[in-house]
């Protein structure tokens, strides 16, 4: 499917690139080195409208289409994978389910703060015993009068360190098949009994705060249930369908950044009296990387375009993620190879991009889960 981007989509790309190069690129290496969450970027990204792109103007969002949002994640991730996932997890995992499953009261209460970045959002699904097997979650919510009392633990929660609004999944009915007994809740960070653990030390996306969440008799009013009782698994899976395109866009952006760095390096680096670009071995890698990027971009844009047109996008999104995650690992590996020894040291950005790329094969559905989703659609 050929894509002719609209004027607005083209201008989104140039505007986000200009912002990312001015405000994010200068701190990308430092936040990685220091494992520091770039909190100063949150109001800046909020002011640019990057934290509420797919949220309608009615709720203080920008009202952009989904493809523009993907282009924005791609452009931000091109200079910094951490900032890419900060936007993605906040928007696709926390704001999106409130927009699609929330009541009007919930939307009016939470979306304006999320869309402007006054509050960041996070998504609490994964548990120690429930990763890919999300329906196996052990966190419970027990009805007590008008409230639900939540107990349990979540792990690997992106944005846990700075988020104020959490979409959390808990088992509300133990007597039905596992995925039917789960409900979703919107929980404020400062709710008594709710504690946030220490940041994990990670291989990549080191500036992205990743924490456990602990719930000890956390009392949440019934008005904070998101969707219907027992609808939680559907909320989670529907949210992750969109999230997959977002992570594919992040992977695409990381790979694009690594490719551009490698191309520039190959043009400037002279060995045996000539630039590296004169060597066929290097040309071959550059050609492969460029082809990988073009293919990945089409898959991401197709999935986003289908979502914009209100068509079925879950399988195209799974395909985009299944292709782009490993593609980003492949392209960043080749970028290091082109850089030689310089690619292995922190003075050049490609080793960071290589480490940042790896998680895109894992979070929001591993490669294996994407294959499962795609195969299931083929065999039904």
């Amino acid at each position, binding site marked *: 499917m050929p894509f002719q981007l609209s*004027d*607005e989509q*083209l*201008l*989104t790309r*140039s*505007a*986000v690139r*200009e*912002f990312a190069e*001015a405000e994010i690129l200068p701190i990308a290496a430092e936040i990685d080195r220091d494992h520091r969450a770039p909190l100063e970027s949150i109001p800046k990204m909020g*002011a*640019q*409208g*990057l934290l509420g*792109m797919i949220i309608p*103007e009615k709720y203080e969002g*920008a*009202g*952009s289409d989904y493809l*523009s949002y993907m282009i*924005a994640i791609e452009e931000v991730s091109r200079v910094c994978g951490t900032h890419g996932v900060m936007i993605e997890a906040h928007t696709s995992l926390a704001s999106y389910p409130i927009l699609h499953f929330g009541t009007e009261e919930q939307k009016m209460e939470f979306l304006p703060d999320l869309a402007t970045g006054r509050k960041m959002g996070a998504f609490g699904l994964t548990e120690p015993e429930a990763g890919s097997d999300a329906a196996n979650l052990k966190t419970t919510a027990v009805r007590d009068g008008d409230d639900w009392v939540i107990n349990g633990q979540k792990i690997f929660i992106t944005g846990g360190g700075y988020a104020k609004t959490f979409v959390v999944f808990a088992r509300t009915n133990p007597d039905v098949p596992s995925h039917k007994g789960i409900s979703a809740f919107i929980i404020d960070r400062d709710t008594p009994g709710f504690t946030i653990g220490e940041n994990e030390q990670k291989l990549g996306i080191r500036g992205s705060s990743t924490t456990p969440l602990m719930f000890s008799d956390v009392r949440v009013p019934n008005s904070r249930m998101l969707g219907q009782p027992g609808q939680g698994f559907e909320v989670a899976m529907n949210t992750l369908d969109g999230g997959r395109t977002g992570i594919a866009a992040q992977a695409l952006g990381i790979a694009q950044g690594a490719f551009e760095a490698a191309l520039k390096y190959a043009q400037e680096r002279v060995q045996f009296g000539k630039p590296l670009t004169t060597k066929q071995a290097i040309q071959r890698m550059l050609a492969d990387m460029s082809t990988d990027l073009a293919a990945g971009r089409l898959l991401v844009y197709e999935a986003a375009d289908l979502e914009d047109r209100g068509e079925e996008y879950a399988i195209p999104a799974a395909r985009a993620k299944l292709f782009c995650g490993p593609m980003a690992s492949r392209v960043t590996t080749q970028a290091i190879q082109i850089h030689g020894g310089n690619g292995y040291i922190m003075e050049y950005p490609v080793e960071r991009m290589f480490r940042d790329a790896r998680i895109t094969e894992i979070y929001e559905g591993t490669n294996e889960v994407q294959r499962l989703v795609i195969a299931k659609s083929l065999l039904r």
Partner: protein
Amino acid sequence: MKIVVAYAWAPDPQEASVGADGQVDFSRAKPVVSEYDAVAIEVGRQLATATSSALVGISVGGPATGTPVATKAALSRGLDEVMVASDAALADAGTTRTAQGLAAMVQRLGDVSVVLTGDSSVDSGSRMMPPVLAGLLGWPVLSDVQKVSVTADGVTVERLLREGVQQVSVTGPVVLALASDATQPKAPGMKDVLAAGKKPVTKLEVADLGPAVAEGTVVSTAKLTGPARKGIVINTADPAAAAAELVGALRAAGVIGSTGGQA
């Protein structure tokens, strides 16, 4: 009252390449709002907001200047509306003819208090556009402008000169050429991008700009001819030795005198 910004839709210098012969190749560079004029738009936005004026962009250029993506790009930077004349005949119009077109636009708009531009341009970098435009309008022009504030009967500007900061007050309408570091233009936000398509665009034909523009000459360029570069490379690790070698080479070439100062 209107504040006008004259801007160019020009190749992005970040995407230009320089060949081995020193020629700059813009053929693969995508067009953008000139980075110099983006500074003028940003300053114009602040002025227009402070004085409740309308901020109008004007541009004269080849066919690409009038495309929706070009006008939306300019509008997304904070202009309230734009007026453009784009035609193949204007693509290589040169400074005088382009300035004549811009002057015709300013006169057509009427009630203009200030015309802002970047103080340089991406193409020839001649810095001629502001004075030629001001000459055609019969207005004063100030270059190297760092700061602008609107007064009751004109503007007060600060110019950063080699001698220091100069403050100048002007009564009546004026053309101001903004220094490229007068401010750091902000990237358009997502709402700005979407709002751009809803703002007014006025398109003019070449004939609307008057006979001088319609019948003007086309300017072509030629490669500079002059003495060939000597290609001397000073490759010495010790800075003092490098300086001595440089001074020696400049003296030998007659660029600096044989006396005065120690190498």
